[in-house]
């Protein structure tokens, strides 16, 4: 009876994905315990986040594919509306308007667009599947650019980057001609100076700081310097769990959230990093396989888009902690403390599961 119940509940769960995700979540909790200085309070809070996220994942996994495609457009439009609303009546936190107060909870509409954009594009391409013309790609590009500009305007460069990356991935997978892709890339490159001047001063500073962290060692360069010190001093085997001096003595800023990878690298060394990266690669690989085997255009593009967005997340965070990319507020998926991005990511993973199991169910 109970077995049957579990079988029903787990009917739409992909066990491979679930396994990898669980291992990563556990690693996240272990690292968080060290990063927060042994705070069980933090661990319980994160466990709560995980519980919510797993529920969302389960729900997403159980939503039928055709239903999913029908909510793509409303979700996208709702997201756009919320972004505009944020601009008008949003809460200002740390000098940026990102939050919308709904009375009972605060939500970050930009977070929604990380899934909303690839879903919308997948739906759009699926709809015009047989007659894809250049015009369609131009329209699709515009569909990406609008939310990106709104998010970047909050300003939230990190999320804007992720939303853009998500859209770009779908465009790429949908078969946008290489000429067009290169053209778009060139236009993007040409607009860099304009983009630069539109950046806030602190954002410009972050980019400059990446080029030379020592320029301002106690200010903007501090994050990068301290995270590379943490990483480098970890060595091959690491300093051991709870023994990272950079994090324990609070030299490392935002060590529970965006810079948790530095804590992990300091305490578990290069070997630990290798394990972590392999786990992420397995997760992304599984996602790509699901995409390759997906039954419909919508499912293929959605699976591919979600997977590659996940990949962008990981790369941007690790690149930032490793001193390769500017400091943008992107957490490390499944490891960093925080509920919002965890929920979004797990929702994405739920979608992957839904796509995967739907195909299986269709075949049987």
């Amino acid at each position, binding site marked *: 009876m109970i077995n049957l119940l579990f079988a029903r509940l787990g009917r739409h769960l992909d066990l491979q994905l679930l396994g990898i995700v669980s291992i990563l979540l556990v690693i996240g909790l272990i690292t968080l315990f060290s990063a927060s200085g042994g705070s069980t309070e933090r661990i319980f809070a994160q466990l709560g986040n995980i519980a919510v996220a797993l529920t969302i994942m389960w729900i997403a996994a159980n939503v039928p594919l055709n239903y999913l495609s029908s909510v793509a457009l409303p979700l996208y439009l709702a997201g756009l509306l919320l972004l505009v609303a944020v601009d008008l009546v949003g809460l200002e936190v740390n000098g940026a308007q990102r939050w919308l107060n709904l009375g009972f909870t605060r939500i970050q509409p930009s977070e929604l667009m990380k899934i909303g954009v690839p879903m919308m594009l997948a739906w759009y391409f699926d709809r015009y599947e047989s007659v894809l013309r250049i015009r369609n790609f131009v329209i699709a590009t515009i569909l990406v650019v609008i939310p990106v500009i709104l998010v970047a305007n909050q300003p939230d460069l990190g999320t804007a980057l992720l939303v853009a990356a998500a859209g770009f991935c779908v465009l790429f997978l949908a078969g946008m001609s290489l000429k067009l892709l290169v053209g778009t890339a060139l236009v993007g490159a040409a607009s860099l100076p304009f983009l630069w001047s539109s950046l806030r001063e602190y954002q410009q500073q972050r980019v400059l700081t990446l080029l030379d962290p020592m320029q301002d060692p106690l200010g903007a360069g501090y994050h990068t310097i301290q995270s590379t010190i943490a990483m480098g001093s970890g060595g091959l085997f690491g300093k051991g769990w709870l023994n990272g001096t950079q994090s324990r003595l609070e*030299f490392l800023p935002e060590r529970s959230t965006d810079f948790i990878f530095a804590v992990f*690298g300091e305490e578990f060394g*290069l070997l630990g990093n290798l394990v972590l990266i392999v786990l992420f690669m397995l997760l992304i690989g599984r996602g790509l396989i699901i995409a390759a085997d997906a039954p419909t255009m919508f499912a293929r593009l959605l699976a591919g888009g979600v997977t590659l967005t996940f990949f962008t997340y990981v790369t941007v965070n690790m690149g930032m902690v490793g001193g*390769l990319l500017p400091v943008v507020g992107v957490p490390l998926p499944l490891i960093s403390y925080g509920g919002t991005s965890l929920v979004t990511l797990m929702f994405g993973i739920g979608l992957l599961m839904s796509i995967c199991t739907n195909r299986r169910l269709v075949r049987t």
Partner: protein
Amino acid sequence: MSRSVELRDHRRELYLFQIRLAVAGAIVAGVFLMLLIRLFYLQILQHDHYQLLAEQNRVNIVPVVPHRGVILDRNGVTLATNYAAYTLEITPSEVDDLDAIIEELSALVKITPKDRRHFEKLLAEVPDFSSIPIRTRLNDEEVARFVVNRFQIRGVDINARLFRHYPSAEVASHVVGYIGRMSESDFAGLQEKGLAYNYTKSDYLGKVGLEQHYERVLRGVTGYEHVETDATGRSIRTLRSILPVSGNNLLLALDAKLQQIAEDAFGDHRGSLVAIEPETGGVLALVSRPGFDPNLFVEGIDPAHWKLLNESPDHPLNNRALQGVYPPGSTFKSFMALAGLELGKRTPEDSISDPGYFVLGGSGHVFRDWKKGGHGIVNLHKAIVESCDTYFYGLAQDLGIDSIHDFIGQFGFGKLTGVDISGEVSGLLPSRQWKEQRFDQRWFVGDTISIGIGQGYNLVTPLQLASATAILANGGRIFRPHLVQHIQNSQTNELETVEPHPVAEVRLQPRHLDLVRDAMVDVTRPGGTAAWAGFGAKYAFAGKTGTAQVIGMKGQEYDEELIDERHRDHALFIAFAPAEAPKIALAIVVENAGHGGAVAAPIARKMIDYYLLGVEPKAPARRAASRESDGD
């Protein structure tokens, strides 16, 4: 057909999608590979570098300043010491708004604008994460008030620190000197000498006097604490500490009481005095008046006091004993007499008839004696006792400048004595070569004549004159004058004696010495130029008066009352006692005080009375009124 096209398109699309997916997969693999390479670079190739940086982050090396050695006089009287006091210190890295905190603190303890200026100066100089004093020397009430309110003030603490203190204040200020906070140039100097490792930029070091000269001895060795600190600079724990080694103590030859008596004896007069123990070369007293309070300098002197000291026409910051140069005047005659005897130009019996002037053969130039009408029949003894100029004019001519320079040079005139305080000047003992180099002019016989009575180009420092007197007193043994007698090791209490042996010797015949000494004893007896000062002395008091002209009085009568105080002659006096076995030799210069016998000699008498007999002067110094026996 259309269906098949659609189908083909569909397949082509799927194919394209899978190609693109494969490309994406390759990109994913490539990017992760790049990340791993970066991590390999950081964690393996650059590991040592970052390991070091992490350690530097974590471990703060805090210097522990050693106890500075104390300075004691020959009887154990403290001249420089340390005392512990509470200081109120702010750690700027833990404070957001310094002004607000200081405002808050000034409600609890008094913070003067001077304190604030001092704090801001240090704030600019001292590295992060260290605490900077805002107030020093808190009294008990202030400490209590702060402690009660401490919980609401973050980043402020009370620490017990050692401070340098000079209990005798002005007395011996030029000897002891002072310490002060290191300047940029001080630090550069230490780096040049390779000593910078023992200091931090916020340290104190000796600036003047013994504090400066014996800096290496007094300093000790800085200790270090390796303190684990967090990112805000809070100390978590001490990992390792290397204890500092206290500096060694200086035990001086100087007698603080004697010094005090000498300084009091000067009264308001400017001038200088150096007393030396002839048997050792130890400096018993070294006076330069006016002095200053060295305690003013320790925490940085305030501009008002500095202006007062620096711009005073009395130049209280100059150490006249080492840096003041004066013509030796008639004190030079003792050495001239010895030269005449030793070089065979005079016998004790040779006498002249003094008409009150000396005529230089050939030129017909006339040199006057200080006494109108002259001293009558004068032999060597009388020439010293009455300070007859005419006798020494003739002697100078007979000796010639070369002999004078070579013989008298042996007593250290015109050379640095090598005393253990920095800043000494060499004075001037003129010679033919010197004049040719200095003025590009040959030496005239006329130049030699005034040298004979200590005028002309002659310049000595009080220290040189005292050292030469000590050599005369001890029979020709030359010591390097030294203030420090022993260096006491702070760890073992062992004493290291400073130079107890003579460094050279002037070969003098005892009978010649006795002749000069006997004459010098008669100087302080009735008929001598310092008879008033020697009245009733219970020991053989050898002395010689002198007067140094400040401005030339060509052919004019010198009238003390008519000329500006600062243009009056300097009074000089050299002395030693007891003459048969001298325990003390000294030289005194009292600026603008007129004749040596009247003002300078009584100072010597007071000192020697105390030093030999333990008799302390009763009344405070008083300007001598008697002029009966003065003269030159």
